[in-house]
């Protein structure tokens, strides 16, 4: 089945620093999305990004499908960015959505 690897597993930043979160997956026929989990547990969608680059605020999602990788860039980090970030993939034409193990950001 689909494999999703995220790195790093955890990351500690000083406020104002940038972060780059990585997501690698096992199939080229894949749609990628990013989620943020609040420290209290709530999960929210950040990006649905099958390919290319998308921006919202200080966040940038880049997906290079033929290289089976995606990244989430956080610029000028703030304490409110703390939490866990997940990438998830589903195969084009299918709807089984599989998650990586997450990156915990502090």
């Amino acid at each position: 089945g689909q494999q999703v690897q995220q790195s790093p597993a955890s990351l500690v930043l000083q406020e104002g620093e940038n972060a780059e979160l990585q997501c690698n997956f096992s199939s080229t026929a894949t749609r990628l999305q990013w989620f943020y989990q609040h420290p209290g547990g709530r999960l929210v969608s950040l990006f649905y990004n099958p390919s290319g680059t998308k921006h919202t605020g200080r966040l940038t999602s880049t997906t290079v499908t033929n290289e089976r990788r995606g990244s989430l860039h956080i610029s000028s980090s703030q304490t409110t960015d703390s939490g866990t970030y997940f990438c998830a993939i589903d195969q084009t034409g299918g709807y089984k959505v599989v998650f990586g193990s997450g990156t915990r950001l502090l």
Partner: protein
Amino acid sequence: EAAVTQSPRNKVTVTGGNVTLSCRQTNSHNYMYWYRQDTGHGLRLIHYSYGAGNLQIGDVPDGYKATRTTQEDFFLLLELASPSQTSLYFCASSDGTGGGQNTLYFGAGTRLSVL
């Protein structure tokens, strides 16, 4: 924003007990999902469904049944609960149409403890 409601929010049961977790979405989404979240494993897919009466097997289905009774309602059943099923359970829904967009919307989660 899609609305997904899970109940109960917390549940404690004993080994061998029966538990039903409920999920309702009010946006007429086609797809609904059940995940469990455990430290070190992220979210793991238990079952999912693309409509009333349909059930698809996920990656960790052992010990779980699920039933999609309506477009809105998806239930997760633990008929002989075991301590290994102590976890945080999330339900999610997605439209699954409209050019392939499949953004997931999550409920608040149910924390289950099996003693």
